[in-house]
């Protein structure tokens, strides 16, 4: 299974991180520090796998972002690469040629999308179209709610309550 998903920029800034296995806060920062040290220093034409603490980390660089996933020793590295690519494609479709800034400002949406692709460290949806539809449906749910909440009368009602 996938133990965590990590997106870091070339400068080592974390852009998204999702843990599927329990790690304490201390371990988390340590993991990120260690991994960014290992991954960011690797050259461009090397293989995309790193052995790390008895696990394997599969990473791939897209523009200035490194997408990393940590998996068990006997998981399939190529499959994980495909999942990473799958995620990137969906992000791309959702944001329209995604860039790092999109993820910075919509970090929660990146999470929501990831949650539609992976659950409990396993792939749950391999169709890009389905994911896009699901996200759109949830977004529209939010939008309608926002419209209601955003109206002035609502705010006044809230405030005078």
């Amino acid at each position, binding site marked *: *299974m996938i133990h965590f998903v990590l997106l870091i920029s070339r400068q080592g*800034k*974390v*852009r*998204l*991180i*999702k*843990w*599927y296995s*329990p790690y*304490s*806060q201390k371990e*988390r*920062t340590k993991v990120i520090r260690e991994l960014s040290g290992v991954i960011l220093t690797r*050259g461009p*034409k*090397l*293989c*995309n*796998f*790193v*052995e790390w603490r008895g696990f394997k980390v599969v990473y791939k660089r897209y523009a200035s972002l490194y997408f990393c996933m940590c998996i*068990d020793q*006997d998981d*399939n*590295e*190529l*499959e994980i*690469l*495909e999942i990473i690519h799958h995620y990137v494609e969906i992000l791309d479709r959702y944001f329209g040629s995604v860039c790092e800034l999109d993820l*910075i*400002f919509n*970090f*929660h949406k990146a*999470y*929501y999308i990831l*949650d539609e692709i992976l*659950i*409990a460290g*396993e*792939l*749950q*949806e*391999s*169709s890009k179209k*389905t994911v896009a539809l*699901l996200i759109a*449906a*949830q977004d529209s*749910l*939010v939008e309608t*709610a*926002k419209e209601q*909440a955003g109206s002035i009368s609502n*705010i006044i009602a*809230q*405030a005078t*309550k």
Partner: protein
Amino acid sequence: MSGPSLMDSLFQRTLEDLIKGLRQQLIGEQAFISKALEEIRKEIKSTDLSTKSTALLKLSYLSSLHFHDMSFATFHALEVLSSPRFSHKRIAYHAISISFHDSTPVLLLITNHLRKDLSSTNEFEVSLSLQCLSRIANVDLARDLTPEIFTLLSSNKLYVRKKAVAVVLRVFEKYPESVRVCFKRLVENLENSDPQVLSAVVGVFCELASKDPISYLPLAPEFYKILVDSKNNWVLIKVLKIFAKLAPLEPRLAKRVVEPICDHMRRTGAKSLVFECVRTVVTSLIENDSAVRLAVGKVREFLVDEDPNLKYLGLQALSIVAPKHLWAVSENKEFVIKSLSDADPNIKIESLRLVMALVSEHNVAEISRVLVNYALKSDPDFCNEILGSILSTCSRNVYEIIVDFDWYVSLLGEMSRIPHCQKGEEIENQLIDIGMRVKDVRPELVCVSRDLLIDPALLGNSFLHRLLSAAAWVSGEYVEYSRNPLELMEALLQPRTSLLPPSITAIYIQSAFKVLVFCLLTYLMQRGSTASSMFPDNLPSAVSASVSYESFDDLSVENVVDATDTHGPTCTSASITNESIVNLLNLVELALGPLLGSHDVEIQERARNVLGFVDLTKLDLLNSSVQEENDSERKGAEASKTIELMHGAFSKELGPVSSSAQGKICLPDGLMLKENLGDLEMICGDIDQPSSNSFSFGSPYEEKGGVSFSNLQIKENSRQSNESTSLLAEHRKRHGLYYLPSGKSEMISNDYPPANDPMLLGNINDNADDLVKLTEESLTPKRKPNHAKPRPVVVKLDEVDEKPESKEDSLSGAVHDVLFGSEDIVPTSSQSNLSDMPSSKRKGKEKQHTDSHVESKENLVDHGNPSSRRRKHHSHGKERRHRSPRKKNAEERKDNGQKLKEKSSHRHGMHKSGQRAEEPFNFSVQTPVIPDFLL
């Protein structure tokens, strides 16, 4: 402080504002964040859910990307969760899933929220709560929500169902009892036509099977169907993983799945699937030759591919296949060796592993030679990687592949001279180990140690200190093989030893002591023999001479003595003259004198010992040499007795000791090792106080000198050391150049010699080509090993060397793991751990078809003594099988009751299995299929 006002909520910063502000960094990141956190703390107390949720969203941003603690907001997250609005829920669930953990106090309060959302009509709300549950589930949550999950497992909405399936894994893990409820529905989903649901189920089984494969053997027909029918690569990969776990347990199953797997391998274009097939074949179907050949063929395609990923994976697959089918590696060796100079360190390491797999008795020397040369030119990391793998390969199984130990010992010496070498500790162990185990190699070992010791450059490399301590020990312990003990003495006492850490200096001193005693004894022997021929009635020295000769014979060094006699007349025998002994004693006094003031007890004590010994013997020896021979005899006798005694103490050979040796000693009566010593605490407490002072050095003075004493001592020390260095400089002047032989003179410099210039890449490639050639040659089976000399005896201790105990331990541990799962994680029996779950399931299913399982289990068991616990378990399983056909509930219950009385918590697990057997699991329908399928 009051809650936020209307203004606050109207002009609340949104997440976007926060991020923008962070990026502008007008006031610095930390300052901005702490300000933002302050705002959030205020806003999150708001009664308005929108304000609250925005605050929560901002907080989760800061928490997940800037690692700020958000535990203060756990309760607020729950409040937001209760909002009817989807947008709020989404934020709340996200915050919860990143911040909650098993010990979060408000975790108990979330159960109802989750339950409500799990049974919501809005599928997205259900999905959110499932998503969250998969992350935060603990025992209580898993138990309380099992019914809801069970319902969702057969939900009409595939979207929800697949998530429920995925969450089941987590629920099983936390609350194994839920298996009884949900397992059947989970299995039913295996026949679902929807690829996503199927993928989720297979994923769950893949994880479950990796922990305890035997339990899922009965489901093999379903998996087989998926393997043959499915077109979905994601699913196929997972199914292959399951078969990789199941096939080794059941040979018939392995035969059955080989065909479809090979089909997939041939047909598919997806590399990930091909690789999974290859891996399944090389890990689990290794007996099937044709499949392995096909897989190796695919591996070769990977190896020649441009993609470094495929290269890496290909090499990995080869290293899995290597132990059983070495031909696969030697067929591709050219490529493997080329990869040694790949740009990617991961690929280099993989190929190094493979090269080491190729090493055999016949080619170990050649391969090691080339690799060592290679290590000279590599970067430090890879260099040590190479050295480490040479060391571990050569020492494998008590130096199994080493025939020529002289060569190996000199290789060790050579390796320690490689500038990047950091394997001092490993080489240290091997030097001492070989010295003790292999008698015949000792002369060479001493020779190598000498070379290491006299090289002052090595002293500067702190990684090598351990190694030098081994060299010092060896040259002290086996000094009788040395050609020139005086030279050794000088090496041991050279001024640069001050660079060593105290513990190693102590070893140096001790070795110097041994060498000194040996030199004196040799000297006395020479004199004694001449003396005794002149005065045959002089008993003491005659005895001493004969004793020492005897002791020489005892040490089986006849040939060595011969050797020193023949081609080294200038060495041992002739070189120890009166003058040299005087010089030697002076040297010792000069070098060790300053150490008497050392802060390290060990050094101080040993230096004192040596100097005391010198004092004891010096006068006598020197006087006797000056005076008339017959006068000297009486005086010299005392000294020679002392020396003889010391030599006797040192000449007792040390042998390797089995690590289990202590266990063999039976406890003498009256010795109680397990008694609680707590009572002593009081007594010790009284003693402790005064004694705590006495640990500091020079305590007798401390009372007088007070605080200033330590300063004084330090000053004195430095003065001493200054003095000593100046003295040594003098000494050095007197002895001409530095007192080391000219052979090494080019190496001698005060600085550590620079690393060999890294050669150009071309050279490396040349080298790789060399290696290719070499292995080609050495791998041809025609070449017979022409061992010039027979392999020397390697002393082995049966227990230690074969390590049967530890093996058994790990094996039974593994078996235990397989059978009982992760019992350790959830130890209390009331929580009924995961371990019970699979075993109980097995009991449930295994009843009808038994043979194969028993077989496979027996196989596992055969390797070691089955633990009594397992045996119990096993027989119990049989018992169950006999009984189950009757399957009367009442009877079962009674049974269980009885079993419960049989105390152990393990039985408790059985008890559950008893109940499980009643569950209408319909395995009777499936299981009869299995034998047909398998045969």
